[in-house]
């Protein structure tokens, strides 16, 4: 085997300049095909993701929040308010620092994590507040204390309770609302230092905020905070509620879903999802055409290489015959030819993949937020393609050049 590799390498070196054009052609073919496939797969993934989100009836949010407006889903209600009066609106979903109307510029989308409290806490908050008419504020205050106990590192994780008055790098000033009496509330300003893993640098006050790409984590996650499974200290705590504009059935569905063990449930803005689905499927079709083109290029390169190799083999007939005369088996000779062609396609494929890895990340479809990142499947496909092309070229070339017997070959060469 070693000798065959060495022999194939010697031949490859000797005919390198003959092979050079094929190497470059194959490199170009592979590069184009790989980038197209990367894009196609990314689009396809996006499409699947969108399809999945669309099928998640519970978690579709049909509206994206804006200050003083409601984000309403057929199933899940989210209130986004500027000044949340916890005492008065005790039964609504409350997203405090969204209430300031954070917005993320289009080019700087980021994930927002939405966390539920433990099931127990949730029931305590929602259930008791509804049935016993206890002001949510006071319950929340207790809950905050609990939360602080749970997550020492996460500082003020429960700022769902407090209004965010202002933010600056690393520091949040939270307006803590306390309940003094049945219908009255006093405002106390408290400065709380919050260390954020992902500071709110990307957002600015009084702009719009999108719930796109939110992740809802099951309540159980809250109990795992200590184990480092907190999704981030800048989490929003979102509570489903039973207000006049919400649907308790949906909350039940949601909880059931969470109980089924979904670790992460994505929800996106429905209208955008539909648009995304269309764009993704359009682009998938477009890139499918490009893939056909690049596959055709690879097929043409294979034909070209077959032609080159047939000519070379005709020239090297006596070499093959001499190898056989000196004890090589037909399989060994075929193996040597295979390796030689494999070097050609292998180097071409490597160059092509290298170019593709450099080019792919630069190919971005902004509308879909899709980047043609290098995919493992594509690398495997290129390897298989290289192997296949090598095999086909060898089989065709050997078939085209082969003689009946060794002596016949030597005689033909001698003539």
């Amino acid at each position: 085997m070693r000798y065959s590799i060495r022999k194939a390498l010697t031949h490859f070196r000797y005919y390198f300049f003959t092979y050079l054009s094929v190497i470059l052609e194959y490199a170009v073919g592979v590069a184009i095909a790989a980038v197209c496939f990367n894009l196609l797969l990314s689009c396809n993934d996006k499409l699947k993701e969108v399809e999945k989100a669309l099928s998640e009836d519970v978690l579709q949010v049909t509206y994206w929040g804006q200050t003083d407006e409601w984000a309403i889903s057929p199933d899940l209600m989210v209130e986004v308010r500027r000044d949340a009066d916890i005492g008065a609106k005790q039964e609504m979903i409350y997203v405090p620092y969204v209430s300031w109307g954070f917005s993320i510029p289009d080019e700087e989308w980021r994930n927002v994590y939405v966390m539920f409290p433990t099931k127990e806490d949730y029931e305590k908050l929602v259930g008791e507040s509804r049935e016993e008419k206890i002001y949510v504020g006071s319950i929340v205050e207790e809950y905050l204390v609990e939360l602080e106990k749970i997550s020492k590192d996460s500082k003020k994780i429960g700022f769902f309770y407090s209004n965010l008055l202002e933010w600056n790098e690393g520091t949040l000033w939270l307006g803590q609302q306390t309940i003094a009496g049945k219908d009255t509330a006093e405002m106390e300003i408290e400065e709380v230092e919050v260390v954020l893993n992902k500071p709110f640098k990307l957002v600015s006050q009084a702009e719009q905020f999108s719930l796109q790409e939110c992740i809802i984590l099951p309540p159980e996650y809250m109990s795992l905070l200590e184990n480092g499974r907190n999704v981030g200290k800048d989490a929003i705590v979102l509570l489903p509620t039973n207000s006049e504009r919400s649907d308790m059935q949906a909350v039940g569905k949601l909880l059931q879903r969470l109980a089924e063990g979904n670790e992460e449930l994505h929800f996106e803005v429905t209208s955008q999802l539909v648009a995304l689905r269309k764009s993704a499927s359009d682009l998938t079709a477009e890139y499918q055409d490009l893939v056909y083109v690049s596959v055709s290029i690879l097929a043409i390169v294979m034909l070209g290489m077959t032609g080159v190799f047939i000519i070379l083999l005709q020239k090297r007939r006596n070499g093959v015959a001499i190898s056989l005369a000196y004890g090589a088996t037909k399989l060994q000779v075929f193996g040597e030819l295979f390796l030689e062609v494999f070097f050609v396609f292998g180097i071409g494929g490597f160059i092509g993949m290298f170019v593709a890895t450099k080019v792919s990340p630069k190919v971005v479809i902004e509308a879909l937020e899709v980047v043609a990142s290098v995919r493992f499947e594509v690398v495997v496909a290129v390897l298989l393609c290289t192997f296949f092309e090598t095999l086909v070229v060898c089989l065709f070339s050997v078939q085209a050049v082969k003689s009946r017997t060794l002596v016949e070959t030597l005689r033909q060469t001698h003539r």
Partner: protein
Amino acid sequence: MIRVENMTKIYGAEQVQTKALDGVSFQIEEGEFVAITGKSGCGKSSLLHILGGMDMQTSGHYFFEETEVNKLSDKEMAEFRNRKIGFVFQAFYLLEEFQTLQNIELPLGYSGWKSGKRRKRAMELLQLVGLSHKGRNHPSQLSGGEQQRIAIARAIANYPKLLLADEPTGNLDKENGERIMELLKRLNKEGLTIVMVTHDLELAKEASRIIHISDGKIV
């Protein structure tokens, strides 16, 4: 060492058949230097190719050290050519892509010799044929005589039992031809069995025995 019984070789299809060998029988003992002579097209090269396992007889038997060669499988046949036989061709058939040393190493490579041992043996053989300074040259950089000497070195690299030479001096001038014959005689003296095909009776006289073939028969 070699026993050939009633061997025939027919080329061509049913309608146009050419009988290259017609019931040939003979024996060759170990250490002999046999010359096979005859006119062009009489079947001497066909016989040599069959003896070397490069071609098959149409009928008859060929025994090499009591093994019937035409019953060997493809793999065994390759091994037979590799370990038992050395070929020297009229046209040298050195591989241009390889250096002289690499050409000599060819049968050793297929025999599974390790690279260092292979190189050492090739150097020895280069010395034997008086071309130790040409190891890095490619065949086209050598004269005809030098190329044939390299071809002989390649043929004997794997210590074959039998050296088959097909018109080894056919493409050489007289001086180089003589040098090749000297080399072959020297190898024979060292114990190597040689079967040489030639149409030159003068050269044939250098051998210890002559088998003359005419129209596919030994005469």
